[in-house]
């Protein structure tokens, strides 16, 4: 954990942390949003139509591969957003920049929703394939479930604490400390397979997806989801910054 004993002077340095100043961030995102939002929508629509309408090559899974077009990007987003939150929390603690704390706070609900989507689509993939909606032995599904709980805990901690500065630092500590166990959960639940071999989600989806007809729409959906994430993140952060502004004004009056 970073021990930040020296007081940071908080002035906006003309370095790459420029966007960390709330004022700069609002101006920057104000220019960015108008063109990135339509791009995100278009890419998403194209990706989805492609995934649903594409002629699939012969595949043992047959049509069920189409669920992969939803499950894999969602799971990836769920995991990558948590990684982004770890970085934002670290920057927030070390450089003491409130905006990066707000980035982590704004990203959490989005990550939680993506993780939930991954779980749901995973269950819908599992039901026809193994005949069970949920498999506690499947490492990827277990890791997704545990990470989803971390998201809920993180969001709950933010809402439970009034003072925004201590809330952001405590949430950052939780995010950083929790990340160790989120990472561990990914590999620990694979241990069940050492007891008895059976095919599971994690076993198959790596290899079969390399085929071009599947790979390209998958990539388009990846890019689409990242764009959607950035748009939602920027809007949420602008909301959070305004909320902090309202709080600061109220305190200054008070």
């Amino acid at each position, binding site marked *: *954990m970073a021990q930040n004993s020296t007081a940071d002077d908080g002035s906006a340095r003309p370095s790459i942390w420029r966007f960390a100043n709330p004022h700069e961030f609002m101006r920057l995102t104000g220019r960015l949003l108008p063109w990135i939002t339509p791009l995100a929508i278009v890419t998403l629509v194209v990706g989805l139509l492609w995934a649903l309408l594409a002629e699939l090559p012969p595949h043992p899974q047959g049509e069920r591969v189409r669920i992969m077009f939803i499950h894999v990007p969602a799971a990836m987003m769920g995991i990558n957003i948590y990684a982004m939150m770890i970085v934002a929390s670290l920057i927030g603690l070390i450089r003491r920049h409130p905006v990066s704390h707000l980035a982590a706070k704004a990203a959490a609900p989005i990550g939680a929703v993506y993780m939930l989507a991954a779980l749901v689509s995973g269950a819908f993939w599992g039901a026809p394939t193994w005949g069970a909606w949920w498999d506690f032995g499947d490492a990827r599904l277990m890791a997704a479930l545990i990470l989803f*709980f971390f998201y809920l*805990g993180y969001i709950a*901690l933010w809402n439970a604490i009034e003072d925004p500065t201590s809330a952001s630092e405590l949430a950052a*500590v*939780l995010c950083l*400390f929790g990340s160790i166990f989120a990472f561990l959960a990914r590999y*620990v639940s694979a*241990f069940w397979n050492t*007891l008895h071999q059976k095919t599971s989600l994690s076993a198959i989806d790596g290899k079969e997806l390399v085929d071009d007809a599947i790979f390209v729409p998958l990539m388009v959906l990846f890019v689409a989801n990242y764009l959607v994430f950035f748009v939602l993140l920027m809007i949420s952060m602008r909301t959070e910054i305004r909320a902090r502004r309202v709080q600061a004004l109220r305190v200054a009056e008070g």
Partner: protein
Amino acid sequence: MRALFLRDLRLALRLGGGAGLSLSFFFIVAAVIGFSVEPDPKLLAQVGPGAVLIATALAALISLDRLFQADFEDGSLEQIALGPAPLEAAVLSKAAAHWATTGLPATLCAPLLAQMFQVPDAATLTLTLALAVGAPALSLTGAVGAALTLGVRRGGLLLSVIVAPMFSPTLILGAVAARAAALQLDPSSALLLLAAITIGALAIAPFAAAAALRINVN
């Protein structure tokens, strides 16, 4: 640091009957799981290790809420922070006291409980070993959760939501070790990883908890 550990133990013995209360809770939870499962021996043998692990985790979780809260309310936490020993050491001794009143008694009583569930001897031995190695990790991660939710009124529920996912690796590996032993497979890899998690928690949890305490105590 030793002074704080001994004080917490003495207080635990004097106030909540020390290990007695958490031990009775441990047995109650395991018994309740026993009730709610068909008493067929083969099924019980499989559920047994799970029951013991769940009972241990819940016994730890229940008493985490007051770990720092009591000292925070009467001002002792401030004085502890001002003491010569670093806050990380104080967290370590409090987590050790918590383990001594919840994790340790559960580990000692696990064989007895495993017999009630007719768990085969090999699995009982491995389960007890897994608890002995894994239970401290529950107290250490729990201490971080308790420090994080210090400022929250009635933070008990929030504490559980935050800490339960952190218990998952230890609980999964405990179950895997017991199950492997029951199937006459080699449980050592699971036990070794359990030890690794506890050592990792030993190294990191005090710093995370101390950082959270410093934020909350200011």
